[in-house]
């Protein structure tokens, strides 16, 4: 489980690096127009993915069950892509009301993933068997 946690942490680190590189290239060609959503998008997979899974590995915590893991990852994915899209729209100077769906969907997925993980920790094997 420790190896798996570190592997997932590394994937999140790679995703954060990719976001940072994408933002750097995008901002380079944006003629001095900056968006914090673009610049700081990398923090979402870094803080929301790399650090938690690194801690699970280091502290020998329980690795989340599949459903919790998938929902949590999807939440981070929605929030990260939403942040990059918001940055792109701001830099272009436009808006779209559909953008509100990213944080809502991302938040719901993230919370469900966390709640399921907490249930897994609190109720241990009983919950594990049920899932």
């Amino acid at each position, binding site marked *: 489980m420790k190896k798996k946690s570190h592997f997932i942490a590394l994937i999140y680190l790679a995703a954060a690096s990719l976001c940072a590189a994408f933002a750097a290239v995008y901002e380079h060609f944006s*003629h001095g127009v900056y968006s914090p959503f673009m610049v700081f998008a990398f923090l979402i997979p870094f803080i929301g993915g790399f650090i938690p899974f690194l801690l699970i590995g280091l502290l020998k915590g329980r690795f989340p069950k599949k459903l919790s893991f998938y929902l949590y990852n*999807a939440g981070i994915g929605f929030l990260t892509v939403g942040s990059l899209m918001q940055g792109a729209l701001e830099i272009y*100077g436009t808006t*779209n009301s559909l953008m509100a769906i990213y944080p809502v969907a991302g938040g719901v997925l993230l919370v469900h993933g966390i709640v399921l993980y907490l249930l897994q920790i609190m109720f241990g094997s009983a919950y594990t068997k049920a899932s």
Partner: protein
Amino acid sequence: MKFIRILPIILASVLTAFTAFVALDTFVIPRAYSVVTDSPVTEFSEAETEAETSSEAVSADPVITSTSYTDDDIQITLETYYVNDTYVYVADVVVSSSGYIKTALANDTYGRNITDTTSSIASDNSAILAINGDYYGSQEKGYVIRNGVLYRDKAESGQEDLVIYYDGSFEIISEDEISAQELIDAGAWQVLSFGPALLEGGEVSISQNEEVDRAMASNPRTALGIIEDGHYVFVVSDGRTSESEGLSLYELAEFMQTLGVETAYNLDGGGSSTMYFNGQVVNNPTTNGSRIKERSVSDIVYIG
């Protein structure tokens, strides 16, 4: 258990499909909300009747050169300046009635992603002089009043607008403080919603660090100003090229102050900045970086 196995694929597909739809909806899919109608007002009827009577009596042809246009009601002089390592094009306009300051929408249609080049819209409307407008189509909020017709009344918090009244006067208003209908009732002829205001009462009204959103850099710019009743300036600067660095908003405001402008307002800049005069594009508009090509926009401000 089978569902859980394919759940990541489902979630990834939903995210990808939704993102593609948002991108297409924002930048590509045209949505026409209404077709341009004639102005419902008659405030200009007296002045225009006088002008028509006068022009019928004299029927003088306009005098047109590469840098000027003169007829009985419109005098335009085009000058090029070089300030802050940037070419700036200034059209000095004197008109007998503010009814000659007109706006036009791309394809005569109000909507989102309905665009055309400034020169094409200008040509379609027989404009003598034109500049790009506020690119209202890129926003979902902000008042849109054109040639006396109200197209959008959704207020944007903190948005400063330029109001051109029927009497030709300019006023800077905040959408937080007045509704679009109240502006119509007060005699608004044109309302442009971009900003910020550059000059008010002849004084620079922005700080050195204030920019459009996060554009803390020199860029191509478009602005409109009034010197006195019936006397206006249309200003466009180049930028993003080796010949022209571009202007910051503060530099643009300072430059317009030297022209004697009382009220000046910043319009959509960057790749949109375009000036058209007597059938030609005057400046060097940039699209997709520093490539010299006109960008398609939602609307123009023109004399014609």
